[in-house]
């Protein structure tokens, strides 16, 4: 249990950023089978990070949860090996297998020492897990049951519930609406054959990005990429996702017997690599995306003591990802908090940031350049992101320059174009408050 927490804690410490103090010259090529490779040599530590990303996120699900189960079961059996054999081989050379599934993509990552025999052993397992999973029936049934049990448990977790309901309200019929984990009903409909089909269609070279960071030279990096890629079917890239249809304003509250209400509100607003990204980014940094320095934190936590956590966030995705404001506060303060979030957003969009606020944010973003690339673990994620969303290779190096060009008017104009404060989707999970009459209608379905 603590080890999980440890992982989360470190993740919080390693706040993600973009750009680099020294030039980060990313090398890029395509394998014979069509996988796009992104490589950055980092020689100070004898280790290699590999991250393979497929356009195989839950947006590709026919039955919600298929992408998650496919990725989750890769290491339960591959080729002639069962889960124990896979785990034993990796652990005996100290290699670590990781990964994640989101709406856009599914990733599998490997960290290994770079001495010849250890890296070779680790890659042998890694490539087989990616290319020849067997999804054994017994493991499938058990993992399906575990997933359903976990999803049932999440129904009692306000943080999990508010997030799921929020995406459903934001995205309606779009594939982004469903949670990447699936839900109880949809997961129970998944059969083993669906995993084979999903894997066969999407875990293919033409649908893959391979990111490499570590202590190997170009020749060795090419060999590693070729080894991974050559085991994959060539296949085809996944088709474009449908465009997001903007939802109309809605409010709903989900009853849960908690002391605090979890609040999310926002709207689809930003594509990765889309127009106005830098102006939206800088604006969000000022408004609610920079911790203690941000307006929301200052006005809602520091000035009023209403919340421990209050923020705004941009989540750029392949199609329009959300701009989101979020906080947790005691149920009795809920309406006050919601009013504050809304009025602050309205003010920010009408007036934009002050010159001083802009300057402070630019100072922070530009001044923290060197912090963003000081860890291989972070770099490999950036490379994978650059590859997956086909951002320019100099994305990290030019980030500060692009940010520097952003003016107050740019921020204001971009926010006015992309964020309509009268059109927010709002979801609250929390208990009803008896004393104070509520202004917001309860349990009003979205749309």
């Amino acid at each position, binding site marked *: *249990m*603590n*080890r*999980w*927490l*440890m*992982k989360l*804690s*470190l993740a919080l*410490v390693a706040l993600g950023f973009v750009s680099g*103090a*020294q030039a980060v010259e990313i090398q890029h090529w395509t394998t014979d089978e069509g996988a796009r490779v992104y490589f950055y040599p980092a020689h*100070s530590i004898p*280790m290699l990070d590999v991250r393979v990303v497929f356009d195989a996120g839950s947006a590709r699900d026919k039955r919600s949860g298929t992408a998650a189960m496919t*990725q*989750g079961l890769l290491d339960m059996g591959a080729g002639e090996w069962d*889960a*124990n054999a*896979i*785990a*034993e081989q*990796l*652990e*005996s050379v*100290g*290699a*670590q297998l*990781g990964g*994640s599934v989101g709406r856009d993509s599914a990733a599998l990552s490997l960290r290994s*020492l770079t001495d010849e025999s250890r890296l070779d052993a680790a890659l042998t397992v890694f490539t087989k897990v990616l290319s020849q999973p067997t999804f054994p029936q017994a493991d499938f049934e*058990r993992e399906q*049951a575990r*997933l359903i*049990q*976990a999803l*049932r*448990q999440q129904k*009692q977790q306000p943080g999990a519930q508010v997030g799921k309901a929020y995406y459903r309200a934001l995205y309606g019929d779009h594939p982004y609406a469903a949670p*990447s984990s699936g839900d109880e009903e949809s997961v129970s409909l998944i059969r083993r054959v669906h995993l084979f089909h999903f894997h066969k269609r999407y875990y293919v070279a033409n649908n893959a990005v391979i990111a490499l960071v570590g202590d190997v030279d170009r020749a060795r990096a090419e060999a590693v990429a070729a080894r991974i890629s050559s085991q994959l079917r060539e296949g085809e890239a996944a088709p474009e996702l449908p465009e997001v249809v903007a939802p109309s304003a809605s409010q709903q509250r989900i009853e849960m017997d*908690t*002391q*605090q209400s979890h609040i999310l509100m926002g709207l689809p607003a930003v594509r990765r690599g889309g127009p106005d990204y830098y102006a939206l980014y800088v604006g969000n940094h000022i408004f609610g995306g*920079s*911790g*203690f*320095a941000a307006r929301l934190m200052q006005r809602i936590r*520091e000035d009023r*003591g209403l919340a*421990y*956590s209050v923020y705004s966030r941009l989540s750029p995705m392949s199609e329009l990802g959300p701009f989101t404001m979020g906080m*947790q506060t005691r149920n009795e303060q809920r309406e006050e908090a919601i009013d504050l979030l809304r009025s602050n957003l309205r003010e920010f969009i009408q007036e934009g940031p002050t010159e001083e606020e802009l300057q*402070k944010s630019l100072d*922070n973003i*530009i001044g*923290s350049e*060197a*912090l963003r*690339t*000081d860890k*291989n673990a972070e770099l490999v994620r950036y490379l994978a992101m650059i590859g997956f969303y086909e951002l320019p290779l100099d994305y990290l190096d030019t980030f500060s320059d692009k940010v520097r060009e952003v003016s107050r008017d740019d921020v204001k104009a971009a926010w006015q174009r992309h964020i309509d404060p009268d059109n927010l989707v709002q979801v609250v999970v929390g208990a009803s408050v008896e004393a104070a009459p509520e202004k917001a209608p309860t349990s009003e379905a979205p749309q």
Partner: protein
Amino acid sequence: MPQKRVFLFGWLALAFAASVLTACQPQSSERQSSADSASPRLSVADSAPPADQVAPGDVYEYRLDNGLLVLVKVDRRAPVAVNQVWYRVGSSYEHNGITGVSHVLEHMMFKETDTLAPGEFSEIVSRYGGEQNAFTNRDYTAYFQTIAVEHLPRMFELEADRMRNLKLSPEEFKKELEVVKEERIWRTEDKPTGLAYERFMATVYMNSPYHHPVIGWMEDLNSLTLEDAADWYQRWYAPNRAIVVVVGDVDPRTVFEQVEAAFGDYEAVDLAPPKPQQETPQRGQRRVRVHGRTEQPHLYLGWKVPSLATVATEDEWQVFALDVMASVLDSGASSRFPRELVRENRIAQSAGTSYNITSRLRSTFMLSGAPAGENTLEELEEAMLSHIKRLQTELVGEDELARVKSQVLAQDVYQKDSMFYQGMVMGMLEANGIGYERADEYVDRIQAVTAEQIQQVAKIYFSDQTMTAAELLPQTDGQDKTSQEGAL
């Protein structure tokens, strides 16, 4: 399960978890670290070689006249440094009635000083492009910034300022206490496993300060005063209670001079060391039930075991054997809990172990998990205990042991990827009275652990009579909506 677990091995594998707020551990009598002893004073020049002779990876130490210890480790991968200021105070220094005061004070440290307005500290760090935060644990409180190296001197000045010049105003205190209560609701009141873990620790420990949660009991927070925080600040925030740890692209001599310039004028404060508060021996099994807003039951089993800070030198092998024992049970997909309890026997939805080898006071070896499907907590408990029994009666296989050791060796390399982590290890070992210079021992000590030693510690420390169990159960009809517990 979209997120795959990646396990961590090493000094902090289990310690940092608690650290951000709610879990970690402490020690029987605080081994007074060198900060409080009168060691001969070395000059800056004697404390580190000239810049061109500094070895990356080595640790350089310097102590100011006022007792402040400065540790510097060089990492030249990026023009960045991590600055961490550690204070030897945390919830295990608190007594009933003021629990949570260390953490509340940590929050207040971001407010006013004699020369800075509320929030100005954070604003300055932000404008320099820095990241910053702080964490409170049972045994320590630490503040940190990650920043471009040229701004380090300013960070030292800011930290020195708030070490002695904090201004605690009633208005800011009142607001911040509400923020902390919101934090407690979020971490604990509204999270059944958080509540259950808190009750578990309060049952494992009767008189040890590990009894109370890092964030404090809500009832204590409700009556905490500005004076409580001010007293706490006066008492513990002194140069001879602190450690400055810097990791990054720096020259140690320069850092020593900069720290001396910033902190050198402060006087050491005369302090009585905390009372040992050794836990009274357990005289029989303890069990507590917690009813919460959940359908998923959860189990916690714990035994009190030594940490490196509390164990006698000749018994030090025991803590490393306990550490390996924890990994044999739960350290990767091939270890026993995930393999047998989750995959093969399907008894557990989840199952894990936790043991903090570095706590200041005696530590807890914990097993925890949730039953799968229709399995009951009793069945899960029986299965987990059968694994303890097996460790007591059968030697761990050579293959299993070798896998754990390989992973420890590899992680020792991987951890060099994080300057923050390297700083954490030094700061925590020093704060807990173990000594930063022992950081490099870990890998060798783990490699030396034998199957026989694991069997021995399993026999010494794990008995029915010294076990504590906590069960998280769903609410039953007619129960108050707020969680409550009752003895069996």
